[in-house]
């Protein structure tokens, strides 16, 4: 099977030199030494599709309003191609997805429901979400059974004094390569929870740009995957007094590889930034792997930034304690795994969504 994706075709179109350079020199499908894509192994075929299970998340549809971007007008983001608003390297995913796909926009202010549901695997376009009203909105983005080798982008523009909660279910995908970009204006708040399970080969990029007194929480959960599951985050604090908190938890088994690579960038004027990054992995066997790579780039002096990562195994002595009380080891392990990931599920503030997410995750835990 030919794995190198043919981006040359779109390259021949009328695009700038900048874009051409990225497509050519920064193409992780061809060149596997690019730092930001170091562990993603995009140039490889990982494992067979037949491993995937069929997970039922239909209940989610019942507790939320189904939305579609197709009724909205497509927006022209092609002009954004040359505009990279983040420090350091442009994302290959962003550039290639903007070239390859049209972009549809959804203005969340026009939808008068609290819980919104969108299945992005059914949509070929990139999606651009806008939110400027004070409504409380929980946006559930599902990506399920995707086989798409081409990156797709999801943009969030969050206006001043606005809150948005996003729950991302990335489940049972053979291949899925997503770029999330969140632009938070002053005093806005984004809570983003990404559940990833039963996937073969995935990469999620989380780019976020924070202005004055913003708050960005990013929680990731990675369980029961089979191949390479790669998460990359880049959070830039551009103005004073914003905070970001990232917590990723992974349970890795069956020879899977889970990666977390995250960067916090603090601009020289972004005093009083509070950045926190934590990645914890539980390895259940000796053939699985977890890679963690935190990076801090700080140019202001009055900031609080910390990061950490742990890789551990289930504690045999804890399992013994359960068993000594009559609880069999299978049950003990399940309880300990649930304890390990509870923090991520509990970060969902809406009770119904939290309960339902909990049920889904429980069914995905083995």
């Amino acid at each position, binding site marked *: 099977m030919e794995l190198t994706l043919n981006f040359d075709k779109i390259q021949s179109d009328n695009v700038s030199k900048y874009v051409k350079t990225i497509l050519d020199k920064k193409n992780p499908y061809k060149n596997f030494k690019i730092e930001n894509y170091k562990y993603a192994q995009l140039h490889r075929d990982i494992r067979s599709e037949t491993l995937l299970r069929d997970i039922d998340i239909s209940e989610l549809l019942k507790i939320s309003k189904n939305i579609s971007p197709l009724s909205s007008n497509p927006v022209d983001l092609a002009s954004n191609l040359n505009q990279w608003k983040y420090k350091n390297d442009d994302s290959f995913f962003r550039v290639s997805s903007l070239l390859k796909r049209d972009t549809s926009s959804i203005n969340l202010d026009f939808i008068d429901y609290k819980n919104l549901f969108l299945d992005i695997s059914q949509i070929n376009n990139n999606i651009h979400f806008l939110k400027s009203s004070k409504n409380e909105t929980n946006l559930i983005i599902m990506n399920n059974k995707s086989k798409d080798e081409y990156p797709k982008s999801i943009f969030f523009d969050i206006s001043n004094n606005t809150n948005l909660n996003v729950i991302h279910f990335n489940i049972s995908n053979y291949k899925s390569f997503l770029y999330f970009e969140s632009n938070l204006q002053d005093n806005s708040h984004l809570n983003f929870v990404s559940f990833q399970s039963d996937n073969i080969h995935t990469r999620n990029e989380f780019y976020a740009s924070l202005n004055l007194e913003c708050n960005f929480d990013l929680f990731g959960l990675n369980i029961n995957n089979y191949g390479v599951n790669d998460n990359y985050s880049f959070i830039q604090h551009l103005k004073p007094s914003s905070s970001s908190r990232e917590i990723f938890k992974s349970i890795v088994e069956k020879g899977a590889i889970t990666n977390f690579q995250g960067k916090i960038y603090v601009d020289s004027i972004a005093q009083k930034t509070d950045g926190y990054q934590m990645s914890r992995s539980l390895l259940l066997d000796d053939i699985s792997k977890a890679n963690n790579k935190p990076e801090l780039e700080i140019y202001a002096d009055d900031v609080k930034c910390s990061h950490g990562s742990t890789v551990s195994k289930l504690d045999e002595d804890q399992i013994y304690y*359960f*068993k*000594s*009380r*009559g609880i069999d080891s299978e049950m003990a392990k399940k309880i300990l795994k649930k304890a390990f990931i509870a923090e991520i599920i509990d970060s969902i503030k809406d009770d119904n969504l939290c309960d339902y997410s909990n049920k889904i995750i429980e069914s995905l835990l083995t």
Partner: protein
Amino acid sequence: MLEIKNLHVSIEEKKIIKGLNLSINKGEVHALMGPNGSGKSTLSYVLSGKDKYEIDDGTIEYNEKNLLDLDVDERANEGLFLAFQYPMEIPGVQTSFFLKTAINSKRKYLGQSEMDALEFAKLMKLKAEELNINTEMLKRDLNVNYSGGEKKKQEILQMSMLSPKMAILDETDSGLDIDALRIVSEGVNKLRSNENSFLVITHYQRLLNYIKPDFVHIIADGRIVKSGDYSLALELEEKGYEEISKSA
């Protein structure tokens, strides 16, 4: 109830228990006393079935079954309980949830239906109050940020809720102040009946003022060197381990 014959145990090639014999009948309370390092905790772990201990020789019969054939959870569900000298901390697992799971595991093993939430809450409240445990504490993670005394009380709460046939208490008294010691002892005494047996491991005679044993055994270097009734504990208090072991 429990019959240990000529038990030899080693860990990592090191011999710890060296020919231990002990027989405990239904309804009896036995105290096992001995200096640090004499093998008391090792014996308790072997009885509960913790792995990594090598049984080099001997037999252990429990309720007409070969105890060594049973896995740790089976032993527990067959009514064997060990209150640990150093209870484990389990972050992320609520104490009350742990208790409920333990009780229902046992009921399932015995072919009984699960205890419903209300029934469980009642039982937990009752038992916690008996032990002067604040039920608020049971909402916290199991043993996490519990004081030494709270951990020991927690073990006794588990014991009283699971009402075992054979309970082994490994230095439950250490780390308890005099009030807690009395409360814990009452909890144990409440469970005493002619159906249940106890093996109370302790370093000091103090606990035995509250839990009066039928028999006292002194262990030194992996074997029982002297057995007697309660007066042996008093004699030990007076003379110390060294002299008693010598005279044995």
